[in-house]
């Protein structure tokens, strides 16, 4: 049921196929049925919040979208065509970047090195033999991207270890954006941040969407969700149970969907 609501709301508003469309995902880990039936859409320039209680299947869902886990059943469409995401590299190749909760930054390296980790730029000294990392070019190319997103960071040769939580989050997001990604998945981007830092990260998420990127955010913090999300998808016990347009829903209703209170109303006793 949630599924039909979603598809309609998506296509009514945009008229184009969604950037990402996930249909009826199922995933079992041993005895645990992590996902029973998860479906959701993300459009270009849209922030979708994925909410739900612990164990609702949020993490498994994003792991499947980012290619870390493979679903038992279900389909994933990206830019209208069906895709198979068996490794993280498959997802990255499509332009899906995931910023994990633990940020996956190397503390011992500086900001530029982290932005370009695994994708360093080179100058060839002797073809086929010696390639030298081009530090200066990496730094040069990073600057306009950071500027476009209004990102303010210390000098780019600063070690990541000396950054604040918000700055680290910013680096992680900037890293995702730098690679021309079309869809950025953020796992609890504000979980460990103070008020001002949360503010900065939420602003960044909004600007990211304004620049045309689709954003899928997992969050426990409903006030953050209401602040940035265009739509809210609620998971409960591995199922998509609701799909709201943020401006048309109240906090109570979302909480009810998360805890299952709405369902109990519907199910006759």
């Amino acid at each position, binding site marked *: 049921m949630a599924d039909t609501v979603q598809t309609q709301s998506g296509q009514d508003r945009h008229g184009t196929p969604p950037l990402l469309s996930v249909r009826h995902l199922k995933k079992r880990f041993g005895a645990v049925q992590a996902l029973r039936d998860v479906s959701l859409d993300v459009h270009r320039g849209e922030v979708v919040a994925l909410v739900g209680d612990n164990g609702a299947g949020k993490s498994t869902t994003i792991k499947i979208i980012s290619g870390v886990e493979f679903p038992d059943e279900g389909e994933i469409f990206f830019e209208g065509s069906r895709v198979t995401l068996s490794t993280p*590299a498959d997802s990255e190749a499509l332009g899906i970047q995931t910023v*994990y909760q633990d940020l996956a*930054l190397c503390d011992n390296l500086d900001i530029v090195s982290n932005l370009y980790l695994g*994708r360093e730029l080179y100058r060839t000294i002797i073809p086929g033999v010696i390639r030298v990392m081009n530090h*200066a070019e990496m730094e040069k190319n990073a600057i306009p991207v950071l500027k476009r997103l209004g990102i303010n960071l210390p000098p780019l*040769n600063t070690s990541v270890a000396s950054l604040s*939580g918000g700055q680290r989050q910013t680096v992680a997001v900037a890293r995702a954006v730098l690679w021309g990604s079309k869809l950025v998945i953020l796992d609890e981007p504000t979980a460990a941040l103070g008020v001002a830092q949360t503010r900065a990260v939420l602003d960044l998420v909004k600007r990211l969407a304004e620049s045309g990127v689709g954003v899928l955010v997992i969050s426990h913090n409903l006030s953050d969700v209401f602040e940035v999300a265009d739509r809210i998808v609620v998971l409960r016990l591995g199922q998509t149970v609701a799909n709201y347009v943020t401006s048309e829903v109240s906090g109570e209703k979302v909480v009810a969907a998360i805890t299952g209170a709405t369902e109990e109303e519907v199910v006759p006793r």
Partner: protein
Amino acid sequence: MKVVAADSANPTAEASGRRSLADRLRLRFASGDLGLIPVIIALVVIWIVFELVNSHFLTGRNISNLILQSVEIGLLGIGETFILLLGEIDLSIAAVSGVAAAILVLLSSAGLNPWLAIVASLAAGAVLGVFQGVWVTLVGVPAFIVTLAGSLGYQGFLLAMLGDAGTVPIENSTLLGLATTYVSGVYAWILALLGVLVYLWALMQRRAARLRFELDRVPDLGSIGARVIALAVVSALIVLALNTYRGIPVAGLVLIVLIVIFSFVTQSTRFGRHVYALGGHREAARRAGIRVKHVRIAVFTLAGVFGAAGGIMGASRLGSASPASGGGNLLLDSIAAAVIGGTSLFGGRGSVWNALAGALVIGSVENGMDLLSAPSSTKYLVEGGILLVAVTIDTLTRRRRAKAGR
């Protein structure tokens, strides 16, 4: 340590630009990134103390000896540095050097061309390194255990190879020449000049790159000049001292050249960057698409090759290989060299230059105590103390960094 560090770096202060030196040092101290400063201070202090106690310490002859003694530790230290950068440890590197020494000596006394014997010996080190790397990476046994087991096993190899013969002397003059050849007089000066010019060129290249891409923080010519002059002065003093004896030992040059090459590898190649990334956050490296297993196996292989290189230099200096090759405190000396130099046991921090500095510290202490004919008991106590202090500093730095970091 803090106060000393701040004082020592003052000379470069005026040259290095806008932010005051004290500020920059405080910043670096807070982030636990003092680089080579503490170990260079330690080295200077050690030299002054030994020179005061025994005026033979700072003679050309003794410095030359000291360098030769440090080369083996330094080569093993480079290998150990790579392993430590990953956040692993290699307890077999000294045993590998013993096996390599035995292979070198046996092949050479069987009449093989000395250069082929060297290649075979290095290849043996690589094979042992690959074996350990595969075991650690693919099978998943902790490096600590794999290399401890390896260390015991390789000592077995060594005994099996040399069992009947005991100590096998090197007769080949090329192999003996590795540790007994010197570059002296004018040639020594030319080499020193070349070194300084290469350094100047490297600094100017970096500056040119930043200018070309219109970046800020362009290194100013003043600080480049100060660095180059500092290197020139130090090189001149060393050459001056060494030329009063036989000149620059070729073994020392080999060590320096390897350090320059591998410093370049760690700082400017993808492989080097990935080694640091793995040591910093292995999961982040994996998610960034770095081929973690390849890098780890490559690093263990490299450590094996450096172990072998150290073994070759050690055999050449002693003129033989024996069942004791690679034994004694060589293993702890090489780990100590890396750690004393400032490479972290916790992975991701350090540089191959640290191995040189650390090797010189260990070499100087051993050499100085030999000059004073200190008993083995004292030597062990002092070296144990130095290792403990170095690791303690590393641990405290890490803790302070964690505090400053978040």
